[in-house]
């Protein structure tokens, strides 16, 4: 006879994000056409699609930087943002650049730098860092926030293989802790059980005239 504990019910996933029928115009061009997706704790969603399909626009809309022209975005937790720019001031040291994120976030700076192998660069001005090191520094900011939902726009740009592995480990740990992420990327990430969402190219919709 088996006890009920041998068949544990899978935990009810905690919803982190609902995107319902989001449509976005840029000027008179349709960029996103009724995109719907959901994200639960532990999910990693890869956004794919050709250049200009609106991957970055979708991330900006989910983050709340941009308001959708129709549809709605419901977030159930804080978010951390990695844009395609690193937002590092060249004259400030790495620690000074991340000081604001450290104050606003909940995680410790030394741990984040250690996890991304940046500890030895802490007091170096950002202008002396390579593009891969800058990218990792920007990623450290995401780790500092302690927010469950990560929105990552091309996190691996300029990273070598070892750094991508390191990033993958950090992402896996975040998922294991009940976090979730949406990632746009053109290189395969070392992540298991990812979901993917393909955005169609709407380039053929040449223009859209409001009647």
């Amino acid at each position, binding site marked *: 006879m088996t006890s009920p504990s041998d068949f544990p019910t899978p935990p009810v996933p905690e919803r982190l994000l609902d995107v319902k029928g989001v449509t976005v115009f840029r000027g008179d061009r349709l960029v996103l056409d009724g995109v719907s997706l959901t994200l639960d704790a532990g999910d990693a969603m890869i956004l794919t699609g050709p250049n200009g399909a609106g991957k970055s626009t979708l991330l900006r809309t989910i983050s709340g*930087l*941009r308001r959708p022209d129709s549809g709605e975005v419901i977030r159930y937790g804080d*978010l951390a943002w990695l844009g395609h720019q690193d*937002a590092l*001031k060249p004259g*400030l040291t790495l620690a000074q650049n991340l000081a*604001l994120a450290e*104050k*606003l976030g909940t995680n410790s700076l030394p741990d984040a730098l250690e996890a991304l192998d940046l500890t030895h660069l802490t007091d170096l001005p950002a202008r002396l860092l390579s593009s891969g090191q800058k990218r990792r520094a920007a990623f450290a*900011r995401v780790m500092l926030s302690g927010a469950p939902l990560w929105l990552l726009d091309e996190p691996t740009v300029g990273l070598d293989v070892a750094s991508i592995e390191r990033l993958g480990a950090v992402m896996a740990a975040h998922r294991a802790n009940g976090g979730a992420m949406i990632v746009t990327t053109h290189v395969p990430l070392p992540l298991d059980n990812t979901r993917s969402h393909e955005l169609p190219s709407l380039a053929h919709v040449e223009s859209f005239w409001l009647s």
Partner: protein
Amino acid sequence: MTAFLALIDRDLRLAFRFGADTLASLLFFILCGSLFPLALGPSPDLLRHMGPGIIWVCALLACLLPLDRLFGAELEDGSLDLLMLTGPAPAAVAFAKMAAHWLTTGLPLLIASIPLGIMLGVKGSELPLLLLGLAMGTMSLSLLGGMAASIVLGARRGGVLLPLLVLPLATPVLIFGAASSYAGQLATSPAASLDLLGACLFACLPLCPLAAGQGLKAAVG
């Protein structure tokens, strides 16, 4: 509140690191003021009469110089996205930037106006009044300028649009400020002008950061 102070702290660090912006507006202020004696002639009487007016106009123009980069640099390197998403409220972000603008532009101008004033023949007894007026005036200009800078943010030819937006809004500050600075020379009471100058400042204090916050939100959208 800690985020607000951290933001000002970061901007001050940046200003010390890249002193060029602060130095440029300071040098512009001093050079511009020094050109008037060359054009108007060396008559001490004339210069003393013109002095406070010259200082006010030069300070107004010098305040405009770094406005273009106030939010422009943040928008270009993606920092503004982060500030809007994870930082304090947009109006607080705008207010912190305006405060940093005053500390790095208005305050140095205030100090530089002492030698410039003495050079133009402003009497020592009239200087405190000039400085008091300028302190309130430059604060108002930082607020108005920051608001205009956030509104033109992301617009093409924003640099051209900026003075066109700020200068009309700054005219009351200029009128009441200069009037208060002339009170010593004309032996009148500066109270009325200072009151109105203070009223301008206190009208700008809540309104400009709110408007600028909306401008910043629109710029990243």
